[in-house]
């Protein structure tokens, strides 16, 4: 299939789709017994109940709650003081678990851990730092995936990661072990504090993938017996760092 016919085919589909779309919407309006609504209606119940929007824990409590929730879900939480401690922790863990391949996001905040130089026992790779590589395949065979969390939420015990050219979705998904570095100032109380930011930013600012991760991959599909690591990482470390900046 050449790209040209692909293009034509998609155009033809879109034409059909737009016709159908009008029928669809007209049909809905007719069934609801009124004319089409073409401007945004007032939405009086948008978002969480009001009392909830004011709810906020102080930092230490956010950390305690995040830790309790993440551990209850089967994840590991380690609190570290600074960047050096993070670097040391990952090195020790990689050696302890005999990790052969480590894949990290291509971020300044992670390259400054200098794992490439200090971790000679393993191959350390940086996501999408060269073209012509099947990065999905690299992620699939990596033992460790290392990411910076964009945010974390204490109430649900979740790490939030957003995709970008230098930040692969596969890095937090395909390796056996996931290590997420979370500077504590990125930790909020509620999900809503993060979600409303996506509304405020608007469609054009959103990345292709936004992922909330609340522990290791799990399933209870076989006789209600909890199984960890069914498809995603079975071992997840959340590293809470008090002062990550230099």
């Amino acid at each position: 299939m050449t790209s040209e016919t692909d293009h034509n085919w998609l155009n033809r589909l879109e034409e059909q789709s737009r016709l159908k779309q009008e029928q669809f919407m007209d049909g809905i309006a007719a069934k609801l017994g009124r004319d089409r609504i073409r401007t945004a209606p007032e939405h009086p119940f948008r978002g969480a109940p009001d009392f909830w929007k004011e709810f906020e824990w102080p930092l230490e409590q956010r950390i305690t709650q995040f830790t309790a929730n993440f551990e209850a879900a089967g994840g590991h939480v380690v609190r570290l003081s600074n960047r050096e401690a993070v670097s040391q922790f990952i090195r020790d863990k990689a050696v302890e678990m005999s990790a052969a391949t480590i894949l990290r996001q291509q971020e300044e905040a992670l390259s400054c851990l200098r794992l490439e130089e200090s971790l000679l026992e393993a191959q350390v790779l940086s996501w999408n730092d060269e073209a012509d590589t099947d990065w999905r395949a690299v992620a699939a065979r990596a033992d460790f995936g290392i990411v910076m969390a964009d945010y974390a939420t204490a109430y649900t015990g979740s790490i939030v990661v957003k995709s970008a050219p230098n930040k692969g979705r596969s890095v937090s998904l395909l390796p056996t072990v996931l290590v997420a570095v979370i500077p504590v100032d990125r930790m909020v109380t509620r999900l809503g504090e993060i979600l409303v930011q996506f509304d405020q930013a608007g469609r054009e600012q959103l990345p292709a993938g936004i992922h909330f991760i609340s522990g290791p991959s799990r399933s209870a599909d076989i006789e209600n017996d909890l199984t960890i690591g069914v498809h995603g990482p079975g071992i997840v470390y959340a590293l809470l760092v008090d002062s990550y900046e230099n």
Partner: protein
Amino acid sequence: MSSSELKAKTVKERAGQALNNDFLRNAVKFTTERLRLGKKLASEEHGNWDVWRERGRQIRLHTIAHLDYYLNEFAEQARANGAHVHFAETAEEAVAISLQITEHKSAKSVVKSKSMVSEELHLNKALDSIGVEAVETDLGEYIIQLADETPSHIIIPAIHKNRYQIAELLSAEAGETLPPDTTILAGFVRMKLREKFLEADIGMTGCNFAIAETGSMVLFENEGNARMVTTVPKTQITLMGMERIIPSWADLEVMATLLPRSATGQKLTVYMSGISGPKREADADGPDEMHIIIIDNGRSLQLGDPEFQELLNCIRCGACLNACPVYRHIGGHAYGGTYSGPIGAVLTPALNKNVAEWDDIANASSLCGACYEACPVKIPLHDMLVSLRRRKIEAGRGDKLEAMGMKGFAAVMGNAKRYRSAIKLGKWGQKLVVRGGEIRTRIGPLKGWNSYRVTPSLPKQSFRDRWPEVAQEIHSTSGPMNPEIAARLKERLLAAEFRKGEKAYDKRN
């Protein structure tokens, strides 16, 4: 589905089969109990549960009442994100679009994450018919696909299989004998499906919520297979019921609070993913091409129907299944449709356009209202079941014998003198059949009842005999009716009145 299951035409027959299967009955009971308790604890711990339910209901009501605007907005924004949006009125159209994409991409295999819509479409069979391998990747769905069966629970699809049966199915796939050990079995599936993810040409998902303002779709899951399916293959297809819409990310907080707690008792599923279009130009993963197929398939029939419009509020959590005493006994397959439990009992006939005709599914309920209590968006399922039964009778499809019996009942009950004579006759007549205060004989008018239950004997002093003192007691203790109940009764009455006047529109909006 096995051949004996296919032969069973009615809910009663299928329930009979289920009741004869001890493992199924116990497994369903255990699982629903675990999920129900999990939900109870999670909702209590969260607190103000009814305030959240009400908020969830309001958001869903608002969205459905303005569905033409929000759905249109979603389609436009999703296109702006670079996704290709399609509309399908029927299951056949949705299948045709899916097959067209598959053929155009010369795809050999499709990896799928759990989607109830795809079950509605019987898409796997259609893909198979054009020589494309469709692989279910949710652990439970994978198991029942190997067994060639359908899901029996919306959250735990393979609830009816034990690990020995599962080990047998997976061993056949592995070509070696696997022990019935959960960790080993899950490990095999991880390895096996990893290959499938990496080889597949197309990834296919359902959609929990679609955010109108940004054209994003949101998936909740625990295993990570939905993330795999939306990250690894080059082409991605999302199947989405037309009512899955919510206006904004802010509204997602309410759904994310209600859905996981109601489904499994979790504060949030392990993964919640918001996907906005295909991969960006410079991204190194995510699909190059993303298709979203928006499906009606009977959904729009509920719009403007004051008795059933709220069905579209459903967020597919399964809490009503776990709460339902009937589901707990007969399991999901007895319902005979894609959706089981109380929601299935209403949704199946509603989506099939034949509210009045659908066999006896509306009778598979004790109308206890546990489903309504459990529902995170307060869908009055038990009221809907009553409406279904009423429509069936109105359409002249009631049970003739039952109708006759009811007429007789009315004749006796409508006249105090006749009632007294009948009871007197009964007290005298029962002496022949009472054994230890119970009547177990299955003769005459008691045949139907006593096939499943035991009739207590008529007491020496009946409630009616005691009425004068009881009435006295009530008058001295009762206050005014609970205002919430009074409002509800009034609302139903209004809706019924309204229905008579035709051209329906949900007054509560």
